[in-house]
């Protein structure tokens, strides 16, 4: 069974909010109608967003790290928001594991938002229905887009490639490999919701040192610095090869 999800690399995220604005840009222009955006330049701006980037300071000065933390619906494998919905508007798709809201069935009772420990569902104050991240379900299957663009808007926008999109049930997908190889984890595991979205932790930067960085490839004696000095008139490497 497929379970589409995002894998967000906290080691790479720079907190630029490009995913927030591209998400809003894409989703406010969709067929479901606009996302609220009241007083955007006024005193008390408010609106509906499917994605937020938050910032945390970890540690004590001077040993601190700033962690930028993008947060959107985690598309839990056992989503607590789905069984509480009285109308069936909130549902999890069998075929790809995306948790969606049927805006035509939602009565706006907010019970699903109460039932979500992550606070990723936001009611739209103008449409009066619950809204949330759709993993850009209207993008990722769109055959009119080039295959490389069939990804959520946030993933397309990320300038540092901190967001990976893929099937986490497919062990060969880039998302699965990133989780396995870099210690990917889930948020609030204590509630047993099994979020599909994973986060990659901060990790020590490793410099990849290849063999040829340490030893010159044109070093036949395998001893650096002990190459015989060429005679002044003898041909150099440039004279005998065409590279």
């Amino acid at each position, binding site marked *: 069974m497929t379970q589409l999800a995002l894998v967000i690399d906290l080691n790479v995220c720079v907190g630029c909010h490009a995913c927030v604005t591209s998400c809003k840009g894409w989703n406010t222009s969709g067929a479901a109608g606009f996302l609220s955006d009241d007083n955007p330049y006024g005193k008390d701006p408010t609106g509906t967003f499917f994605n937020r980037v938050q910032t945390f300071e*970890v540690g004590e000065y001077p040993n601190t790290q700033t*962690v930028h933390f993008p947060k959107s619906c985690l598309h839990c494998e056992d989503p607590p928001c789905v069984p*509480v919905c*009285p109308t069936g508007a909130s549902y999890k798709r069998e075929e790809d594991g995306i948790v969606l809201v049927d805006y035509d069935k*939602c009565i*706006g009772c*907010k019970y699903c938002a109460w039932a979500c420990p992550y606070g990723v569902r936001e009611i739209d104050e103008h449409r009066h229905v619950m809204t949330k991240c759709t993993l850009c379900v209207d993008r990722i299957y769109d055959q009119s887009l080039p295959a490389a663009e069939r990804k959520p808007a946030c993933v397309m926008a990320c300038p540092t490639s901190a967001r990976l999109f893929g099937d986490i049930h497919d062990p060969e997908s880039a998302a699965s490999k990133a989780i396995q190889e870099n210690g990917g984890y889930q948020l609030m595991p204590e509630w047993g919701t099994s979020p599909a979205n994973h986060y990659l932790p901060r990790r020590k930067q490793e410099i990849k040192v290849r063999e040829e960085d340490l030893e010159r490839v044109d070093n036949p004696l395998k001893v650096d610095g002990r190459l015989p000095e060429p005679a002044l008139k003898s041909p150099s490497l440039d004279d005998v090869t065409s590279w």
Partner: protein
Amino acid sequence: MRPALSVILLTTLIGVGQGLFAALYTVQVFDRIGLIQGPTSPMFYALGCAFALAFLAVGLGASFFHLGRPERAWRAVAMWRKSWLSREVIVLPAFMGCVFLYGLGHYLGWTQLPILAGLDATLIIGAVGTVLCALLFLCTGMIYACLKFLQEWHTPLTVINYLLFGSASGLMLATAYAAIVEPGLVRFFAVWAAGFTLAALLGRSASLSRNARLKPRSSLQTAIGVKHPRIVQSSQGFMGGSFNTREFFHGMSSAWMRSVKWMFLLAVFPIPLALLAGGLLGGVPALLAAAFLVQYAGLLAERWFFFAQANHPQNLYYQRIS
């Protein structure tokens, strides 16, 4: 959580309606098995049911104000297999129908219907109504008790307290009602009202002391998955408010919370009990009516506190604007 007036009214008003109906049916059953002398006129039941229906209907009406799309409320019956809210949406109108039929049966005197082989139809309708009444308490309580990460609510005490508070307030109303139309039943209702009020005091004290000792299972560490003991949010990601900052924070000081707690503890338990005793001993119906009104006002505060006290784990993500 931010308490919503619509939900406070819904839960308290239908509690009164349920308790009043249960009180009426108890009198009929006790009368039938000869433990007490029942009311002199069947109109006592019919009028009582009209009162209960009024409370249930106003409560149901209030609940619509909680919905963003009230015109689609009928859809809420769909998921009764999974959702306690859906079950409540089904059970409440069914219960109201039973209360209506029960009152109508008494009004029209369906006590010896030939099609039921001379059985008392009101007793049967009342029994069905009592089952639905209990189910409605269960549904209302479970809506809150089933949310496991709202730890303040996730306890059987939530369901028990809804049952006890609803019954106590309904019996208080029944006492005041009987004082006006059936003085012979006042003592019977008053004893039950006092008993349920004391039981509710026990149940609420238990939940208050339980909640005071709760340790939140989620922390900033589990919320963002960083193990360091010192994590401070420096930005929640936006400068204004949002649904998440409005819906899940009550925004009141701890001093306000403490005073609401003591207010409801006084207004729901000792004051109505004193008024009840005064009304009973002095024979003053006005004091009995005051006992119900004070207790109901106290229940509004109690319900406000119930919602406000629940600390949603999502609040960990929304601590700092900048």
